[in-house]
């Protein structure tokens, strides 16, 4: 029965080893040490049992103590368990080792299938009417720390050409973002989506509905892409107040930058800014609001001459855009993964200055066109997988404010997981026909998916 003091010592020893190891060593080292210690002590115990059995056999023939044998078996099982743990942890470490200096990589794919009642001439879209199957984009996202002072990221996009169907690749974003500047400052440089409005700098597949709001397409030119610099300042107040300002060559993914000509001046760049704040109305209700502005003092020849339906032509001379956005959210703390409500609204006012470069029967000169646009949506999430909403849009053409379009889009989303989502949307478009466009009805089915690394970014909150 000498075995029991040994067992007691063993258990105490093992426990002490665990607690000591947790203080000073890595979990893996600690486990390895435990295994070695246990194995050594099992061997000692086995020897002890054999010796004890031999002695007992010599004294009185009887079977080895069942209790002793059971103790050894228990210890062996414990060793097996620990070995399994070590192997699983070493396995996990091995998996991460080769990737240590590589960026995290994720791939996002999106297929939009639609049926529209009008053709592209009647809708002014770059996609055909009738049935249209459009692999709208495939995005490769890579991100990693550059050094202790900054991180870098890139979004490489491939999308199908609407005419040829061929995939064309482009750099959607590739920027450096500091993380160590003093005074709550952060600098971004490269190609990136500048901070303007609420959804302007959100990628298509992250929108709460299928298509980018008309007003953002019309006034910004799609996503708020720019090649430039942007500085963000978290104002040191107890209240969240964020101020961003940027300067860049071009602003808007679908709009070319100003014609550089021979020498580009500072007044040919785009300048933008955004001020936003946030309030906790109750623990479950949140309100966020912001104002944004964009100014390009001299946009001569940006996008070339714009031919009007009446034959006259316009050249944009100044680009001026302001916007205000507001979102109200109900995010119940307890079950926010299963229920939430978001109401988001954004209004933009475009006041570009144009020059009538060629005028057929109209007055030559410069004029500004004041045009409004707004979108407002309400999304209700009613289970972890399902949400539904309604989007209303109204926009005046920023070349001709008499040309107005409204859209009504109910949508329903089925998110099988974070990485696999289907959305069905119906959109009714009403045009006042000034530019010859027609009313249209469309049904969209969007299927988007993500593989690889997937981060929950601040902008997607």
């Amino acid at each position, binding site marked *: 029965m000498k075995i029991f003091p040994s067992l007691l010592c063993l258990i105490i020893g093992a426990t002490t080893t665990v607690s000591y*190891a*947790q*203080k000073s060593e*890595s*979990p893996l080292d*600690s*486990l390895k040490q435990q295994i070695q210690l246990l194995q050594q002590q099992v061997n000692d115990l086995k020897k002890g049992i054999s010796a004890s059995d031999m002695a007992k056999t010599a004294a009185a023939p009887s079977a080895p103590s069942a209790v002793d044998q059971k103790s050894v078996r228990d210890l062996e099982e414990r060793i097996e368990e620990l070995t399994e*743990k070590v192997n*699983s*942890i070493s*396995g*996990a470490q091995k*998996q*991460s080792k080769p990737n240590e200096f590589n960026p995290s990589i994720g791939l996002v794919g999106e297929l939009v299938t639609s049926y529209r009642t009008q053709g592209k001439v009647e809708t002014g879209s770059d996609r055909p009417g009738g049935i249209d199957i459009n692999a709208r984009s495939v995005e490769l996202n890579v991100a990693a720390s550059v050094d202790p002072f900054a991180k870098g990221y890139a979004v490489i996009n491939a999308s199908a050409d609407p005419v040829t169907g061929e995939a064309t690749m482009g750099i959607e974003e590739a920027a450096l973002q500091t*993380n*160590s*500047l003093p005074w*709550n*400052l*952060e600098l971004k440089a490269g190609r990136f989506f500048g901070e303007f409005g609420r959804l302007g700098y959100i990628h298509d597949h992250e929108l709460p509905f299928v298509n980018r709001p008309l007003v953002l397409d019309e006034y910004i030119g799609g996503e708020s892409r720019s090649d430039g610099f942007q500085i963000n300042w*978290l104002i*040191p*107040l*107890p*209240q*969240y107040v*964020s101020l961003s300002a940027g300067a860049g060559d071009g602003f808007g993914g679908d709009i070319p930058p100003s014609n550089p000509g021979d020498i580009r001046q500072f007044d040919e760049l785009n300048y933008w800014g955004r001020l936003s704040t*946030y*309030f*906790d109305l109750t*623990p479950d209700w*949140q309100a*966020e609001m912001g104002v944004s502005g964009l100014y390009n003092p001299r946009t001569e020849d940006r996008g070339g001459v714009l031919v009007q339906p009446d034959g006259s032509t316009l050249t944009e001379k100044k680009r001026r855009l302001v916007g205000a956005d507001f979102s109200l959210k109900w*995010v119940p*703390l*307890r*079950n*926010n*993964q*299963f229920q939430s409500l978001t109401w988001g609204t954004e209004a933009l006012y475009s006041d570009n200055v144009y020059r009538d470069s060629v005028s057929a029967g109209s007055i030559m000169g410069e004029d500004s066109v004041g045009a409004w646009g707004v979108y407002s949506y309400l999304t209700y999430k009613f*289970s*972890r*997988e399902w949400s539904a909403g309604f989007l209303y849009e109204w926009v005046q053409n920023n070349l001709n404010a008499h040309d107005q379009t409204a859209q009504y889009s109910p949508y329903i989303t089925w998110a*099988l*997981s*974070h*990485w696999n989502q289907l959305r069905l949307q119906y959109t009714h478009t009403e045009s006042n026909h000034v530019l010859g466009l027609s009313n249209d009805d469309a049904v969209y089915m969007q299927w988007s998916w993500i*593989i690889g690394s997937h*981060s*929950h*970014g*601040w902008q997607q*909150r």
Partner: protein
Amino acid sequence: MKNAIRLLTTICLVVAALFGAALPVQAKVRVVTTLTDLADFTREVGKDLVDVRSLATGVEDTHGVPMKPSFVPVLNRADLVVLVGFDCEHAFLPALLEASKNPRIQVGHQGYVDCARNIVPVDVPKTTDHSGGDVHPYGNPHYMLDPVLAETAVKEICEALVAFDPKDRAVFERNRDTYLAELDTKIVAWREKMKPLKGLQFVSYHEHWPYFADRFGLRYVGTIELKPGIDPTPRHIEELISMMKADHVPLVVREPQFPEKVPRLIAEKAGAKLVTLPIMPGGVAQTDTYIEMMDYIVSTMVDAVGK
């Protein structure tokens, strides 16, 4: 000109007043914790020397604390951020830390206190492919439900406070030892109370309970979720019910942030009892501290299954 100078002076005074309000006036260590159990531990160790704020209130899912912009100024001024680790907070903390623009609390810096540093994880996945759902590549992060491993977190917090404020080492260490002694006493009592439940089989909604089951000798046999973060399919529910019937699993645990409908259905069909158990302090009423929460969990389980 005089008016202009007056206006400028007024603006400067207003700005100075605004900024002055934001400047720290207290000498306390400003600690932000992700979850309420960590806040409770930090208060126990730091007492009057710390100013603690938890991002979670206790009712949220540990992986689903909403990313509120109001957290950003709080994190911006924090000296330490204390987290569970093992990617438990991956859905909200990395983005909040980036938005906080506080270099002191970024990963790898002294103010980033990962309590999992010395924990041996269970259920480390062999692959991190999403076919396994929302897998945690470093292993199951819910070790705080094992009170012995929770003690490791208490020690980590104490170490971090001492490293930040060495002059108060003696106070922090004394508070830590007092609290650990209290926890040790409770652990003995909880074990004693749970003894009759040794070998008890149970299922839960999310995989929160492997460490708890290991500690108290229970058998954790399945989850209602198909995979972590993935809702159950009808087939999975049927299979779970069949397994529970065949193996006579008597208990279904529902964490309060998950809907009750499916767990209730499973419990009814499998002839099991349904209990709602918090996963952090504040998850249900009268569980404001870690000890109160564990008391509640142990009592509820024992009462549900009987002696």
